[in-house]
Structures are given as C-alpha cells and as structure tokens.
C-alpha cells in the first residue's frame, strides 16, 4: 500500500506483502527515484568488493592468477619511510574516507560552529573509538584552551573552596574507565520516520573511549561537602559557557573530572584540557572545557536544560533532568554502508553490532530477522563493562532473501529497548532527545541494506 500525502510519495508498505515479494518490484522502483546517488554508491562498493571476492573464492584453476600474488609489490621492493617520519602517527593514507561526517541538518543554517559531527560507526572495530573519530558536538565552536592558563574552581556549599591548575588537578589519584558518550539527540532525525540511509547518521552521535581522571568524590572528601548541597552546577569555559545542573547523588557515585582519552590528553573537540564525565549520562551533561563546579541547594535552570535538552511529550508538557542515555543497540554489520551485496547464498557471515546502556551493564541482546515478530538471543563478545559499548555477534547463513534485521538490548536494571511504537506511545514524535527505539535494516534480495522503520 502506498499512500500519497501532499503529492509526496510516502513509502508505507505492508510488511507481509514486501516479504512475500508482492511489492518488491514497486519498492525497488520507488527507491531508484528517491535515492539515485545512494544506488550509485552501492554499485561502486559492489564492484570493489567483487574483486576481493574473486581472490578469496578461487581455489582451482577457474580464475586467472592474481597479480597481487604473482608479482612483487611496490612496498616490498622499496625502502619505506623512516621510523619516526610522522612523530605523531597518522592512519594509512588509504583510510582517508574513514572520517567524521556532518550535515546541514545538524546545525543552524549550515553554520558549523554550533553543530554535530558523527562517528563512522560502520568502520569501527571493538569498543574503543580512536580519538580523531570521536563524535563532536559544539555550541560555540571548538575552544582552544591554553593549559597554562587553565583554572578549575570548586566552591559553593563546601567547607573549603579550591582552585586548581591543570598540573595540580592531575596530581590527584586517577582512575580509568571505558565509557560511551552519547548525545541525547542521537537518532533524533528519525522520530517521524527514517531520513538518513546510513549507520553513521542514524547512530553516529556517540563514541566510546577509555577516560582517565579523578573521582569528584575523592576531592570532595577533603573539601567537605555541606549536607544541604543537593545540586552541582558544572560550567564550561567556551564561548557558550555551557552549564548544566547535576544531582549531588550522581556526583558522589561515579562522576569524574577527566583529562585523558585513550591514553593521551583530551582532544580539543572533547574538551581539552578537562571535562566532566558522568558515566552513562547525556554527553551534554559531561561539560567540556570545564571551568567551575559549584554546589548549591536549588537547581539553576541553565539554558541547555530548559529551552533545549528537555523532552516535549505529546501531552504538551516536557520531561526535564532526563539524565541517562537509555538501553540501546544497533546492528553495525550489515548496514547501509556495509551491505551484503558480495555474499553468495550459503555463505556464513557474522552479524555484528553494538549495545549500550547509561543505566548499567548490557546483559542480553536479541536479534530479529522478521521485523520484530520473532527474536533469538545472540552472543555478547569481548569486554562487557557498565556504561560502555558492548559488542554482540551472531553467525548467519546467508539465504539471499529479504530480511528485516533488528537488534534489541536488555540491561541489568531490566530495561528492554522499546519498539518505535512503544516509545511513540509514551513520548510522541516531538521529543527530539533520548530516542532509543529499535532500529530496522531492510536487507533486500540483492543484499543491499536500507534504513527503514517498523511502525504503525
């Protein structure tokens, strides 16, 4: 069934018909008219992949000998660079397309000072995001703080206020945690329907790194927090003077002031030299270029916790102080950028993905091949840490048939990732923030992958 709304062709189709093949031809036609550039992109990808497939699948004499094996390579017959040619190492030049990307939709009028760039999740392995690929959100550009002029003040309802230089701060004992950071707008473009045909843009407002710094409680134990302190104001030193109100309970649990990211200083985009880290909570609360922590009795109602970062529900009222990024997951392979166009029927292939929860630790991930009607639990793999990306994996025998692939995560607070409809029922479609509904990849008979939604 195809609805016509205001002259535009809305692609609402009965799932049963698609899977039965009744609407498939029509579907492909619509797709060609709406996304020509994507089709070209897939064609290019497919031809590149075909070369690789040939070299793997040639056990006998069916194929010509591979020149890459038969002849010496350029790099094997010449002297390479001097060992410290790049004193700060760089990725291979061949990886130049593995970069953050942005879009005018992620900004005001295309102005990229207050904007978001997305991590290339389709190219990431494991659970650590390299620092140069960490997603970035700025409200007044990336500030470049002189570490020699940097000062951090902690005051308000404490017995002993304190001011620290960067070197003094780093003298406190450090702890390191692998934690994801996610903008609560991650997936916000999709409330009303799918818009981007890309894993990078569907879920790329997040990254995961090892962060090193001091627990705020360690400092507060010496400063003496007054018993009437209920809230902490965290304030940044950038042009937007980003500030947020944090409950003291979180501060005393696992909040940190961090200065290192994957073993080196924070990148300017991540708040060099110092940012607040509230494990599992909105990245916006983890104030960058941190300047001041003030303890008080009443909340401040900063701009980014009132006019923005509040969730407007269908009731007309809005949820405020919505802290944790909820339980969530996404299949990273296959995905629109990494389709299955090079697979043959019968090939065994790994379905892989990421699950995470700001409430705690991922306990289970289920996947569905039929758009959410039937599910099976899949294996987690690698490190399973609280408030960190967790990889999941499932070996699948490719059948060359249409699929509606979904993943659904569960955490140790018993949160289960909702369907699009379940979330819509409570929040509506204008909430902007904290969207964690189950995502669907449609794998068509050609192995192409498209971002779709199962909803009513």
């Amino acid at each position, binding site marked *: 069934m195809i609805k016509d709304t205001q002259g535009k062709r809305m692609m609402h189709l009965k799932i049963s018909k698609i899977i039965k093949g009744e609407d498939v031809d029509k579907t492909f036609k619509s797709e060609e008219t709406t996304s020509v550039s994507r089709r070209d992109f897939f064609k290019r990808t497919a031809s590149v992949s075909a070369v690789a497939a040939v070299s793997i699948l040639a056990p006998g004499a069916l194929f010509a000998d591979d020149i890459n094996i038969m002849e010496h390579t350029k790099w094997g017959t010449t002297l390479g660079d001097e060992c410290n040619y790049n004193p700060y190492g760089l990725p291979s030049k061949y990886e130049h397309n593995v970069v953050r990307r942005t879009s005018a939709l992620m900004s005001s009028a295309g102005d990229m000072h207050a904007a978001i760039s997305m991590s290339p999740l389709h190219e990431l392995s494991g659970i650590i995001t390299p620092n140069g690929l960490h997603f970035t959100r700025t409200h007044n550009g990336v500030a470049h703080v002189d570490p020699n002029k940097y000062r951090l003040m902690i005051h308000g309802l404490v017995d002993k206020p304190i001011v620290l230089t960067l070197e003094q701060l780093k003298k406190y004992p450090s702890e390191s945690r692998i934690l994801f950071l996610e903008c609560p707008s991650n997936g916000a473009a999709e409330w009303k329907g799918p818009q981007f045909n890309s894993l990078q843009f569907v879920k790329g407002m997040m990254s995961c790194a090892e962060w090193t710094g001091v627990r705020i409680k360690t400092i507060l134990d010496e400063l003496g927090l007054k018993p009437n302190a209920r809230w902490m104001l965290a304030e940044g030193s950038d042009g937007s003077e980003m500030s947020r109100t944090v409950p003291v309970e979180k501060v005393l649990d696992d909040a940190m002031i961090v200065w290192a990211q994957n073993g080196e200083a924070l990148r300017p985009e991540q708040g060099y030299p110092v940012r607040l880290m509230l494990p599992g909570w909105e990245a916006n609360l983890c104030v960058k270029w941190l300047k001041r922590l003030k303890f008080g009795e009443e909340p401040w109602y900063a701009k980014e916790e009132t006019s923005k970062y509040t969730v407007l529900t269908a009731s007309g009222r809005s949820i405020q102080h919505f802290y944790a990024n909820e339980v969530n997951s996404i299949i990273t392979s296959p995905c629109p950028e990494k389709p299955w166009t090079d697979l043959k029927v019968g090939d065994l292939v790994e379905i892989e993905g990421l699950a995470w929860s700001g409430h705690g630790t991922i306990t289970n991930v289920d996947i569905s091949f039929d758009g959410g009607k039937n599910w099976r639990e899949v294996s987690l793999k690698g490190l399973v840490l609280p408030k960190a990306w967790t990889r999941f994996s499932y070996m699948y025998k490719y059948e060359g048939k249409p699929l509606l692939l979904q993943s659904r995560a569960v955490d140790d*607070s018993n949160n289960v990732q909702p369907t699009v409809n379940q979330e819509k029922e409570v929040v509506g479609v204008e909430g902007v923030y904290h969207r964690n509904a189950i995502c669907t990849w449609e794998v068509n008979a050609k192995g192409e992958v498209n971002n779709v939604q199962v909803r009513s």
Partner: protein
Amino acid sequence: MFKLDHKSILIGISVVASTALLLTGCLSSPSSTNSSAKAQSNELTGPYAGKLGAIDGGVIYPRENGMYTAYVLNEQSTEGINHGRTPTENEINAWNLDALPDGTGLPEGEGSVEEGDELYEANCASCHGDFGGGGHGYPQLAGGNQEKDENGIVKTLKNQRLEPGMDAPQRTVGTFWPKATTLFTYIRDAMPYAHPKSLSNDENYALTAYILAQNGIKIDGEKMTDEYVLNAEKLAKVVLPNNDGFYPNIDGPEGPANVKAFFADRAKNIGAGVRCMTDCKDPGMEAAGAKEAELVRIDYEMADVVPPYSTVRDLPPESEDVTISKAEKMYNESCKLCHSSDRMGAPAVGDVQAWVSVTKKGFDQVLRNSIDGIGGMPPKGGNDSLTSDEVKSIVEFMIDSSK
C-alpha cells in the same frame, strides 16, 4: 536450529499459517526460552542483580573487595590529599556569576525595552530574525501561540507532526522557556554568538527586556512598553507562560527524590520495551489501533553530508599545496560567519554582483565602513583587536575573492 523461511517473515497481530512453524523453531532454542522466562519473572541477570538505586533508575555498583565492577582499585586511603589552593574572594566573585530563578545572583544594572530594541537590531537580528521571529535558521526567540488549554498547558506544544505538513510545536521564550533568569544569564555568558561576554549588564538587561516584551510578557501585571526598564528585582518576578510545563518537579528539598521516583517508573514515564521472543505483538501498535505494522521507508533522503559518503579505500586526491594568506586566515576568524553567504544580509564573499555594488562606493569608503561598522555589522566585524591595516588587508582579500 533456527531456519528462516521467507514466507514467515511477517509482523503484526494478524495470525498467519507460518507462525506455528516459527514458534516451534524458536522454542527449540534453549537460550531464547531461558531469557524469555527471565524477563517475564522480572529477575535481573548478570553479577549485579538487585543493586538498584541510582537517581536515574539504574545501578549503583559497589566499590568493595578492591573491585569496582571489572576494574581493580587501589584501596589506599586518600585522606589528607590536598592540591591547589583556596581562591581569593575576588577570584570567587569574578566567576560566581550564576543566577537562580528567584533572582539570587543577578547583578545590578538596568535597561529599557527601547534600548534593547537597538541592541537587538545591531547584534541579534541577523541570526534570530526581526523581532525575535526567527527565519534565519537560528533559534526563534519570540512568537508562537501562548494560549493554554483547560489544564494550563500551552496548546501549541501539543502539536505532533504525525503527517507531513502538520504544524510543529514552537519552542520560543514565550511558549516554551520556563525561567526568565535563564534568558539573562545566557545572553550575558554566551551572546552575541560570535562575541560572547562583550555586552555590559545594562545592555544585557535591555536585551532581556526587549525579548520578553516581544513575547508579550507582563511583569506584575504591567505591560512592557518601550519605556519599561528591567532590573534584577523585576526580572525575578517574571513568570513565563510555560513555567509549569516541565516534570518531574526538581525544586525544593524533595527535588532529587522526585527525580528518582520518576525514573524508577521508567516504563510508564519514558517508555520501555517488553522482552517477547516469539510471535510478538507490538503493544504500541495495538494501542494505536493498527491491525498490521507498516514498513516505512525513507521518503526524502537526507544525503547532503560532508564529506560525501564513501567507503572506498584508495589514495586521497593529490592536494595542491595551498598556503592560506594571513588576510584569509583573519577573514575566516572574524568575518566569515556573516560573509560566507547572504543569509544574514551581509554581502557574500564570491558574489560578484553583490560586491560590484559595494565597491561602487569606492575602496576608501568601504574600508571606513569596515572599520566604523555599518548597518548590522559592528566596527571591525566585532573584533576590536584588529588593526586598521589588518582590516584593510581583509577587505582587499574579500574584494579580490569576489571578482
């Protein structure tokens, strides 16, 4: 094991013949049935079962026996650790500028709606539109219908764009913002966008007054006319229309407890899934009265991404050895924000026609305007640290780039 029959890939509450087949297939998998049972009995899995209690509804993990979850701890005491120093009173005062909704912390000063009007035209209108009405891609500050329903809810905030062409909820100061003190502190700390913290407190009060007046806000029942003068005392009295439009209640001694109670009931308050494993019906869909879920494809794809999509692994195109001139660098830092396009009314660099009419005035006049300011453009583009010679080289660069 699990066998995927393509005919059985169906969703919805309509019962189909193949369901039985799939149901059998799934039940034969031990892991699925186990976890399904777990979810139904509400029993937590993993090593931290029962450790609930965080304010966000999640887990508080213990630091005990030298461990914090999977991390090993140094358990030596840090008692007596003391780095840094006590700030002076002046230092605290210099940074302690935050203000609460009751007015605590607001500085002295005052400004009228009329003064704010002039300041707004010069500093804000290019982004936020005339009278705060938006239209330039940056947030709209004023406008929107503030009318309330019988429950005191701003009606237009209930707008839900379920179909294309429907009206969006408007989130302006008058329809959405809860607190007027936020407006003052945000303008003071973060605006004007390209030159934050450059205005005086009097100017910030004037701008706050202007924006409140554009939203039709009354203070103590008094309409904010052009002559109305705003100060700290009056600002603290403002009750914005959507003041009560937010939950949970965070004010007072019970604030944190209210938040905790709200997030303890996540299924009701923010939405949660159900861990059904076989023949699942989507409860949200049933509630919406739909018989079968639909597959919604991308209608209009957002494909203008930068850099363009590519997963190709090849050598990057040879980049020409471009060294950027000092003038261009200064232009990028101080002028580009407004001059990169004509959306803010400034002549766009590269727009030949626009610059033909600019240069008609003669170079000396153009330079004088650049140094003294003209129309919406502040002197030297707002960057006082530029010397006249530097402005001259920037203007030359802009003209040369627009031929």
